[in-house]
């Protein structure tokens, strides 16, 4: 299990009020690989994912103990500027949520808030990232129409382009294909596989087959606890823990 670590989670616990969503998680996420977080629904998969870019911050009554290191920096350190952490990561949510603006502006949004103003530069990058998300050919003739008019599959690829445009090092996917039809799902999965050379990717899914297709590395959570983690092949073919076996066999879901 030799790999370079990109995100390093140490004794992470997350509470919502009195409820504990994550219990003392310690795990390392490898650099430039696809890590898939699996587990039954409500087991804390999304909470773990969203703690990486501190989107859990805005939940009422949220409390965190422990550390998450990204590039060696503890992101829960009060000194840390949260926008700087988030800029490092692109997020794909369960359903695509295009911002209430045009296709062009959706991709340019992140660039603009981080200070890119020159029209030429914006044009160039919007085109580049729409191509990266394999959406350019479908939308290049209507860049200035509202993004909400795209199909759901197109919207999800737009969200991918939007996330890539801020030049993150990490892509976070929270069940990113759950609202898509099989064809669109396959396209998104394909992109993940092609992009993993350049990005560290972390994906939450409850579809076991999808996890098997994508994962280099697997994290199995159950009721907020880390049960097992390791290289995908090892975990899927030879799980060590009883719970993991049952989950992979499909007796618990």
């Amino acid at each position, binding site marked *: 299990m030799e790999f370079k670590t990109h995100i390093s989670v140490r004794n992470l616990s997350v509470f919502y009020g009195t409820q504990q969503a994550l219990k003392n998680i310690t795990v390392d996420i490898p650099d430039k690989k696809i890590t898939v977080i699996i587990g039954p629904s409500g087991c804390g998969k999304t909470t773990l994912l969203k703690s990486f*870019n501190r989107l859990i911050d805005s939940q009422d009554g949220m409390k965190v103990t422990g550390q998450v290191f990204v590039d060696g920096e503890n992101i829960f350190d009060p000194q840390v500027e949260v*926008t700087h952490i*988030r800029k490092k990561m692109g997020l794909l*949510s369960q359903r695509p*949520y295009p*911002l209430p*603006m045009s296709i062009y502006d959706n991709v340019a*949004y992140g660039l603009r808030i981080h200070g890119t103003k020159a029209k030429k530069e914006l044009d160039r990058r919007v085109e580049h990232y729409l191509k990266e998300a394999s959406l350019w050919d479908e939308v290049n003739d209507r860049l200035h129409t509202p993004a909400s008019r795209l199909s759901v599959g197109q919207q999800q690829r737009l969200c991918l382009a*939007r996330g890539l445009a801020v030049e993150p090092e990490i892509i976070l996917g929270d069940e990113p294909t759950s609202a898509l039809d099989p064809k669109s799902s396959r396209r998104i999965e394909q992109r993940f596989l092609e992009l993993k050379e350049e990005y560290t990717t972390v994906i939450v899914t409850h579809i076991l087959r999808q996890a098997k297709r994508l994962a280099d590395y697997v994290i199995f959570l159950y009721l907020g606890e880390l049960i097992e983690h390791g290289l995908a092949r090892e975990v899927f073919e030879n799980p060590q823990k009883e719970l993991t076996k049952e989950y992979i066999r499909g007796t618990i879901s």
Partner: protein
Amino acid sequence: MQRKRFLKDIIAGRLMLVLTVFSGLIVFLMALGLYFRSQPILAVKPLSDLLFSSGWHPLRGEFGFLPFITGTLWVTGVAVAIAIPFSLLTAIYLSEYAPRGLREWLKPLIDLLAGIPSVVYGVWGVLVIVPLIKDYIAPFYGTFSTGYSVLAGGIVLAIMVFPIIIHVSLEIFNAVPYEMREASWALGATQWQTIKHVVLRKALPGVIAASVLGLSRAFGETMAVLMVAGNVAKNPTSVLDPAYPLPALIANNYGEMLSIPLYDSALLLAALILLLVVLFFNIISRIILVRIEGSV
């Protein structure tokens, strides 16, 4: 036995239908009723004369609405200019920044503001705002004012309009999907950038509708304005001048209405104008709001 139950059901249904249709038609009945009652004066004078002339001498048969219309516009304008920025800032704070507990605590207090009777606002205006303008604001600008003025009416109205704009805006902000904010934060946007570029942009039509609802409320509000605006039938030229808005005109003259020919017709025409303007604003903003509700 069974037949009786079904018969009861059918009869009750019919009765309810009648009541429903009646309620749905009240707005039109009101407009029609006022229209017929204002026919006598419209038969004698062209509408444009009534709207754009300034002489108000009922005894001589002169009914010029212009000073009252400008009075209404001034007072409403000042009220809206104060109310919209304050209400929106408060609504954004409550919806996007305030912790949930604080928000749940403050919302009923703001709604309470909507429950205070307009006559109490009037009393408060006379006790606090009018002296404030007379003793501090007017002297500060080197002029004299009795305090009963456009500004007094505008301030009191603004406070009355706050809860309406805030309440509707909060619902609108609430309807902006949380995930949309998340998407913006995830790109590294600050809270304020997210509000400015995403939340407000998405909520803009609704915020306009909320403001228009507030505006139309200010436009038709009567008692409080009647008590603090001064009621001098002249076109105001500054916010420290007195004004005589249309609703105050109607309310103030009810006693004399019947003894002078055409007077009641003129006042009911004023009511009709008020109704039509308010209906216009309300219909526009309700259509926007219904669309928003339908799209979410």
